[in-house]
């Protein structure tokens, strides 16, 4: 049986989906997290059913692309996604609003289960839902109570699925057929009638609301305050970045040292040869470049998950909306932009909630400017390299403050570019954000662990495979050159440094460096060097800029591979030490404050993500928009990085 999982946004549909299927679909307490349908399997009495998690919608009549998915699937019986039955998840603490959509689904005559979710929140609000009363109004629905967030109700829902049967034809609003109401004015009238009818039934299905100032309301007076709200949010972010630097340092050093030792050990146990070089100079440094950033990625998502779980992130969405509206931006752009802090891909996809095409395009075009988690490895490596580990005012870590600054720069530039784009792309419609504030909750450790685990797994597995493959290719390009060029250059350097009285170890270092310059990658790097020189970069950085077009975090793996080949196994040092010791031909260090800051600024703006470009192409169904995006972000990155280098030099 194909079962549609439906409901208003933020009622816990995805939590119910995860509960029934055992999957780990991302859940959050603000709308726009599920913008496409997701399919899972659930077993009831040895019978397997297909469960489809649809985007949340307030009404069956669509107002945006994500809502069209629901309308199209439910009202077109010929659709491949037309379900055999439906499970509608409603927020028990807000029945009046939720029953509108449920009553529409009920009237489609699909066998239906009504899940009264979030019963704990309803109890806190002193609301009592009278199931018998509800059953009288919807006699052909199977009604169950649940609290999916803490795992209560799974058996009841599965039992209800096993009881699903053909309907006998009862309708809540028999005068109209929701699948046939197509004109917007008719849809509005139908909705109004439906609301009136629900209101007339309310006294029999829920206890009267006792309105009083809850703890959440009191807390909201401070957290969404027009002044204090922003100040508190800034302080929270600052604390998170401070923690990321303070706590991640120890495990990072451990991992870095372990991979250097691993390379050393492999080199000592394996016979000399090409494969040994590939493993010790390509594969191990490449994997190390991924694994080393697990502590930071885990910490970032740990804090984000806490903010989301407590309900605070919804308040952030609210205050950001208030900030963006005076700038003429669509209220619904807030969720895509905030989602892009984790990753631009779900951010761009959640732009589907924006009904106006032009507004949606502006949001898609600026979303990658928000600093995503893939930038964390690059930022932290460069910050540790050029920013001193000092304290400001005795308590604030300077490195954490710079990380905060880079995030702020990304956010402000996204807003500024959006305003500029509005001059060129005129919009007709003013979108608005409909947001229901969830009450504050104690975070569920299980949900936090799931979020952190999933994000780390995705980072290591998805990004890791690409980083590893690029590291292997880079190693080959760095280890070989055209004809005898590498060998001849190496011999010449050997003679020259030997004549100057250098030690054998120093000679080997210089020879490896000269050979690298004459390898395929060295020749490529030297060719592009004039273009990147104004920004303060050498050819090795240039090569890593090119490879990190695949994904930003590839930068670190590429640097690790290039420096591992250059070191030729002579010095067993962590990457950061190798980079710190890197000198230009005139003896000055490559990674000065100016060059490091310029590189950080470059990564704030540059569109270094193949996957994001692919999603923009998919979402816009055209090559035009991803190419424009890559062009404007590339130009912005180049000139901002150049200006930074000039200013700090």
């Amino acid at each position, binding site marked *: 049986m194909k079962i549609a999982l439906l409901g208003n946004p933020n009622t816990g549909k995805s939590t119910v989906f995860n509960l029934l299927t055992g999957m780990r679909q991302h859940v959050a307490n603000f709308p726009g997290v599920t913008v496409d349908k997701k399919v899972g399997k659930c077993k009831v009495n040895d019978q397997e059913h297909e469960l489809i998690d649809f985007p949340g919608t307030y009404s069956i009549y669509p107002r945006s692309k994500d809502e*069209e998915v629901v309308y199209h699937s439910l009202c077109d019986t010929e659709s491949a996604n037309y379900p055999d039955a439906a499970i509608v998840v409603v927020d028990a603490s807000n029945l009046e609003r939720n029953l509108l959509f449920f009553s529409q689904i009920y009237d489609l005559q699909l066998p239906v289960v009504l899940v009264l979710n979030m019963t704990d929140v309803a109890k806190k609000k002193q609301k009592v839902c009278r199931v018998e009363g509800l059953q009288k109004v919807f006699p052909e629905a199977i009604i169950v109570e649940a609290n999916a967030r803490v795992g209560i109700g799974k058996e009841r829902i599965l039992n209800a699925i096993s009881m699903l049967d053909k309907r006998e034809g009862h309708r809540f609003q028999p005068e109209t057929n929701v699948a046939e109401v197509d004109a917007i004015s008719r849809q509005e009238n139908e909705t109004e009638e439906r609301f009136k009818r629900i209101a007339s039934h309310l006294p029999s299905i829920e206890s009267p609301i006792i309105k009083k100032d809850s703890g959440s309301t009191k807390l909201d007076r401070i957290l969404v305050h027009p002044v204090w709200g922003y100040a508190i949010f800034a302080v929270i972010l600052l604390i998170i970045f401070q923690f990321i630097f303070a706590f991640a340092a120890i495990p990072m050093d451990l991992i870095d040292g372990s991979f250097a030792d691993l390379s050393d050990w492999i080199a000592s146990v394996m016979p000399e040869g090409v494969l040994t070089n590939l493993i010790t100079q390509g594969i191990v440094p490449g994997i190390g470049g991924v694994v080393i950033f697990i502590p930071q990625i885990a910490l970032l998502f740990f804090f984000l998950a806490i903010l989301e779980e407590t309900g605070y992130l919804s308040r952030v969405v609210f205050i950001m909306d208030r900030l963006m509206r005076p700038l003429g931006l669509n209220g619904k752009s807030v969720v895509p932009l905030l989602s892009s802090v984790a990753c631009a891909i779900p951010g761009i996809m959640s732009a589907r909630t924006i009904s106006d095409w032009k507004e949606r395009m502006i949001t898609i075009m600026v979303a990658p400017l928000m600093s995503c988690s893939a930038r964390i490895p690059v930022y932290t490596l460069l910050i540790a390299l050029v920013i001193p580990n000092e304290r400001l005012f005795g308590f604030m870590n300077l490195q954490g403050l710079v990380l905060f600054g880079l995030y702020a720069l990304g956010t402000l530039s996204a807003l500024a570019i959006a305003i500029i784009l509005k001059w060129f792309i005129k919009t007709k419609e003013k979108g608005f954000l409909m947001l229901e504030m969830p009450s504050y909750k104690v975070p569920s450790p299980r949900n936090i662990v799931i979020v952190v685990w999933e994000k780390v797994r995705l980072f290591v597995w998805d990004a890791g*495979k690409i980083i590893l493959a690029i590291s292997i290719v880079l190693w080959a390009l760095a280890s070989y050159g055209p004809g005898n060029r590498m060998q001849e250059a190496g011999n010449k350097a050997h003679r020259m440094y030997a004549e100057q009285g250098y030690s054998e170890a120093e000679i080997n270092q210089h020879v490896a460096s000269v050979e690298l310059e004459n390898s395929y990658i060295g020749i490529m790097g030297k060719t592009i060097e004039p273009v990147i020189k104004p920004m303060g970069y050498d050819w090795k950085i240039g090569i890593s800029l090119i490879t990190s077009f695949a994904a930003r975090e590839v930068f670190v793996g590429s640097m690790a591979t290039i420096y591992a080949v250059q070191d030729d196994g002579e010095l067993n040092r962590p990457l950061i030490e190798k980079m710190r010791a890197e000198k230009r031909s005139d003896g000055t260090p490559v990674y000065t404050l100016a060059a490091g800051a310029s590189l950080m600024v470059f990564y704030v703006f540059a569109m270094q993500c*193949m996957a994001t470009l*692919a999603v923009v192409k998919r979402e816009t169904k055209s090559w035009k928009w991803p190419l424009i995006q890559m062009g404007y972000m590339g130009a912005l990155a180049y000139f901002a990085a150049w200006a930074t280098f000039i200013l700090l030099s």
Partner: protein
Amino acid sequence: MIQKILAIAILGVAVLYLGKQFYVRFFSKKTNCDSCAVSQIKVEKK
């Protein structure tokens, strides 16, 4: 010799993997894209 063969094989797998990723992301038609942001979803009214 064995080391060389294995290294070439690993390099070949890496190149193929990168090529496949590029093709799948940009050119493959087998992507889950039935609700794109810009595509118009045609709903046939009954």
